[in-house]
């Protein structure tokens, strides 16, 4: 299963980015291979429609889970329609911590 996490930088040690739409990077974590991939968010500097466009990137990754700080209504509508579960966490956490917390709380995954 794939998990997308909004990320300030291109590293698992980076902190979680608080805002969904304008996140600089999306970390894609594979729960089977335990590997991280990072995608640059090319939509982040657009004037409008950023939330749904970033949501489209998450959908294109094939993720089932999205971990982020906060997400706006327009983006949430798209993520919900794709039946992706949204988990909001503090942006004090690193990408690694957010993922390991998720795995501890959801051992079935």
């Amino acid at each position, binding site marked *: 299963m794939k998990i997308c996490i909004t990320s300030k930088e291109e590293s698992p040690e980076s902190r979680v980015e608080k805002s969904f739409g304008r996140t600089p990077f999306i970390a894609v974590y594979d729960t089977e291979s335990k590997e991280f991939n990072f995608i640059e968010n090319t939509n982040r500097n*657009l*004037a*409008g*429609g*950023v*939330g*749904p*466009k970033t*949501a*489209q990137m998450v*959908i294109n990754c094939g993720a089932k889970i999205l971990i982020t700080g906060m997400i706006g209504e*327009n983006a949430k*509508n*798209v993520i919900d*329609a*794709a039946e992706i579960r949204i988990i909001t966490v503090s942006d004090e956490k690193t990408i690694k911590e957010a993922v390991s917390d998720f795995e501890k709380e959801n051992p079935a995954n």
Partner: protein
Amino acid sequence: MKIAVASGKGGTGKTTVAANLALAISEIVNTSLIDCDVEEPNLHIFFEGEVKSVDEFVKKPRVDESICTLCKECAEFCRFGAISIIKEKVLISDELCHSCGGCRIVCPADAISEIDVAIGKISEIRVSDKLLLIEGRLNPGQPAGNEIIKASKKDSDNFDAVIFDAPPGAACPFIETISDSDYCILVTEPTPFGLHDLKAAYETGKVADVPMGVVINRSTGKDDDIESFCFKNNLEVLMKIPNDLKIAVIQNNGGLFSVEFPEWKKNFLNLYEKIAGLYGVAL
């Protein structure tokens, strides 16, 4: 001649100036007063007359899922994020769509058609033989009023004089309102907020290349900050309306102070003649 009355800041007296100016002009020429503040039109408070309303529609895209190949061209084209491709279906968010029609053009499978969706109303109120009030009103929840503003303005060439009451702010609806005006009156008030937003409206108006002048409302006589800004930027202060309780009382009862005080009708007529004279428009 088309004159927009704008301000940047809300509550400075745009509508007051627009209403009194249009009423004064309508004594001499065939005039239309157009309420372009489509999110909160309020000119109708000052005028009575027979009302005729029509719905205004815009196009929104719809996808024929039996033809759609889920290629994502439309979603990538849409800069407003109004189209998302989710697994086997296309999600269209009407409230984000700006009705540009681009998705229909880029679709290689020809799977997108357009439907008409009502987004607001245009009302005409016949105030007198020479004064027609036109009001644009956007339905609640609609994201953008530009199409309503355009529709409100579509007959403006049929009048000798047209006054546009612009929406507050200096963004898209303001630009839409002033874009085909011959002149823009910027109404301001002698407060730091009034000056701040006057600057924003002035900078935007400059880009739109519309000549501008300033009316200071609620003038206390201590209007130095506004006047020095106007002087530096070569903006003429066309008129000052004093901070007078008598004017406020008339205004708050839905009246027009140029009706109660005939000298003000003359002042508004002079304002029009001054602007028309600047541009060599015959009255």
